């Protein structure tokens, strides 16, 4: 029994409850009565993966089907991985404690580029061939992937049998149904894949061959096995009616998002030009306030959580936000539940909303200003004026806050030194504002925290064509910002630019990167999103050994008429629109949000209905 083997060593490792299952809310089935087994793998540790909302939805949804069983699987931390390798414990799922190599589907959710190496490590720990081509023809161990990163899955194309584009609620079950039918008929892996690729949203990478030009760009893509030339992502048409779980697995150990999380909307009306989520999750769809409240109550009742967060890209854009919060707060206050509201935008942050948040708990205020000058904020279409930022800060200060956190990006398209100095100047004006307010918090100084990330151009955004700043350029800008700050009331922190560089290579890379991802993993790369495990030198070695010029992906402008590695994937937003938006950005012109005026991204035409 694997359980005994695991238990024998469990007390040797940190937070053992992450590795043994048995949590309240986990679904146990009789495996002799189950036809299809799905291992939902999150390529990071339990603490992070258990916070992922998509897993909770698809886990419960799949388990509603009596004869399908979805289980959870996470990357073990270093200490437990050592125990597993030493004692021949294969990667296993937490419900049955059975090895995932015996499962029908091994599904990875790809949330960020820096988890790519973990996928390889998990497949290796599981004893599953890492390359799709090395897996048997027998119909078993189908390795599939979903999540935002599969909008350009090419750097992982050699490892996945299937990528599922878009929202998984319907297509996952369709795939499992097909599998179940073909399994009964004794079909092979390829027979299954040939049929699967006919399902909308299903991409089988090995049925596509890339032909490159001499300059390294893509000449054309050849499809084989009757696979469609363009694969369109799936969406749920009526978000209000889509399945939402009324129970979550409640972990024993503390996880990153340790609370009830209720989805309020999908998509975003804003169109910030750097934001991938803002484009790949279109169209904008809402749940009714009633539906949200019902889910929140059910989940609190069944899990025992005393905290709720509302999940969306921009909660305050919900058309029923006020009645929704009023209704939710009536419930949460009477039940002594905390309601936390992330993703607040500065431009519609009203006094009444602040009052509502304050009724619950006073925590820090964070605003994403992104750019230091109005010109740059217009370039990125962050439709926020300085007046609005100031107004928001004023409301916050008058409401008793004395510290504000501001997020910025560095290396944005068209950015100049003036924009960098503008960050410091903006922070200075906020300080001045604080001291000009008569009823500011008494006896407290103001504290402005500035957090600077390096801009990463991403597929399916108007900035997908843009190069990333080189390391030298970023270092210059960082120094410039530090030199521009003369007060201790402003604190600055940076993200490591090497991390952002790896991110852009993996985000915009093509299929030729697969061998480098493999080489980097072989060199020991994993958990790249964790500072202590990030070894950029090993990645650079891997790229070099595989003959990959990183600047080709990171620092080159992709041409408008160039075939991009993700052009055969259809995320509903048209390329013409992205080109148009890119050109508009270069003129420092903004595009109004979708509610004010349709910007013609093409989604409504493909979906066949108006967005509003």
């Amino acid at each position: 029994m694997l359980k005994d083997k695991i238990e024998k060593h469990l007390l040797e490792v940190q937070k053992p409850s992450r590795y043994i299952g048995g949590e309240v809310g986990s679904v146990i089935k009789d495996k002799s009565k189950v036809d299809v087994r799905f291992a939902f793998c999150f390529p990071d540790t339990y603490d992070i993966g258990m916070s992922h909302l998509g897993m909770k939805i698809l886990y419960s949804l799949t388990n509603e089907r009596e004869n399908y069983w979805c289980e959870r699987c996470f990357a073990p931390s270093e200490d437990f991985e050592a125990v597993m390798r030493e004692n021949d414990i294969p990667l296993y799922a937490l419900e049955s404690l059975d090895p995932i190599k015996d499962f029908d589907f091994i599904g990875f959710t790809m949330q960020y580029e820096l988890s790519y190496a973990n996928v390889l490590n998990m497949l290796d720990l599981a004893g599953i061939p890492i390359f799709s081509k090395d897996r048997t023809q027998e119909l078993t161990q189908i390795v599939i992937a979903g999540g935002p990163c599969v909008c350009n899955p090419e750097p992982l194309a050699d490892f996945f049998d299937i990528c599922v584009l878009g929202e998984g609620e319907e297509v996952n079950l369709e795939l499992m149904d097909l599998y179940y039918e073909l399994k009964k008929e004794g079909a092979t892996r390829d027979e299954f894949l040939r049929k699967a690729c006919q399902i909308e949203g299903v991409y089988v990478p090995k049925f596509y061959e890339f032909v490159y030009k001499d300059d390294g760009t893509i000449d054309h893509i050849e499809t084989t096995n009757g696979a469609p030339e363009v694969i369109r992502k799936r969406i749920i048409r009526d978000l209000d009616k889509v399945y939402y779980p009324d129970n979550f697995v409640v972990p024993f150990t503390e996880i990153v998002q340790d609370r009830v999380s209720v989805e309020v909307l999908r998509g975003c009306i804003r169109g910030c030009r750097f934001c991938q989520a803002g484009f790949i999750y279109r169209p904008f769809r809402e749940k009714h306030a009633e539906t949200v409240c019902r889910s929140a109550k059910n989940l609190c009742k069944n899990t025992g959580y005393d905290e709720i967060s509302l999940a969306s890209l921009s909660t305050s854009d919900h058309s029923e936000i006020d009645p929704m919060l009023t209704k939710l707060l009536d419930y949460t206050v009477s039940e002594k539940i905390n309601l936390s509201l992330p993703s607040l935008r500065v431009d519609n942050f009203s006094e009444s909303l602040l009052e509502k948040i304050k009724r619950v708990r006073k925590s820090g205020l964070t605003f994403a200003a992104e750019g230091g000058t109005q010109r740059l904020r217009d370039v990125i279409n962050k439709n926020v004026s300085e007046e609005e930022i100031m107004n928001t800060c004023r409301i916050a200060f008058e409401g008793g806050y004395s510290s504000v956190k501001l997020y910025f990006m560095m290396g944005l398209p068209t950015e100049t030194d003036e924009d960098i100095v503008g960050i410091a100047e903006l922070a200075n004006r906020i300080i001045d504002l604080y001291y000009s307010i008569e009823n500011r918090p008494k006896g407290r100084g103001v504290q402005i925290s500035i957090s600077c990330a390096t801009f990463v151009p991403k597929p399916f955004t108007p900035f997908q064509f843009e190069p990333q700043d080189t390391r030298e350029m970023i270092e210059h800008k960082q120094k410039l910002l530090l030199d521009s700050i003369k007060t201790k009331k402003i604190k600055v922190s940076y993200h490591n630019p090497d991390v952002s560089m790896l991110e852009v290579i993996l985000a915009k890379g093509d299929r030729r990167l697969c061998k480098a991802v493999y080489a980097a993993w072989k060199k020991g790369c994993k958990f790249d999103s964790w500072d202590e495990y990030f070894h950029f030198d090993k990645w650079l070695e891997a790229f070099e050994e595989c003959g990959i010029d990183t600047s080709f992906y990171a620092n080159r402008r992709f041409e408008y008429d160039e075939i991009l590695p993700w052009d055969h994937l259809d995320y509903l937003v048209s390329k013409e629109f992205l080109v148009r938006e890119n050109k508009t950005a270069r003129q420092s012109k903004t595009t109004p949000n979708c509610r004010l005026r349709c910007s013609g991204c093409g989604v409504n035409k493909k979906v066949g209905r108006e967005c509003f």
Partner: protein
Amino acid sequence: MFLIRVRATFEKCGRAKYISHLDLNRCMLRTFRRSRLPIWYTEGFNPHPYYSFALALSLGFESSCEILDFNLNEDIPFDEIKDKLNSVMPEGMRIIKVAEQKQKITAIAKAEYSFSLVSDAVDSLYADVNKLIASPEILIEKKTKKGIKTVDIKPDMEILTCNKTERSVDISMYLPAGTQTNYNPTLFIEALKKTTDIAFETENIRRTAILCADNTVFE
């Protein structure tokens, strides 16, 4: 203010032994909330349900006698409290008894533990265990807030049974517990490791009773 003081005895076995004391706190909070019992909340700035565990249990230990005290705003039959909690407890945790709080927590003086030492050479191990038990003092190094100090656990340790089976030596003992002195059975096991050459592994460490100074069960 109307307030019912309740003492629950619960077991923590199987996979539940991997729930750390810190995690157990959070776990119990959620269990109470799932049970919908009218638990009394503290009335400070940040109201939270009041409950406390009499003795912390080490990670990896099982127990059949953990004590949990809490207050309720309504008078609810003990059996109903027990059933409501048990219907929402995690796997491996079960309320055995709900009763009033008879004694103060300070009345706790000792705890009973049992464990098995598994070895390929049971006979030799059994001899070494007995030798250690019979020795005039058992010195161990105990970590305290002031640093490591050497302590003789022999005077406070009371061996109840020490039996040999085909694969293991099974021991049960009393050790001091409570607000004053707390000895963990692993101290004895560490001492044994120093005095024997026989390789063994410890299995099934279990707290089986929480007792007062006169060896009666704490209630």
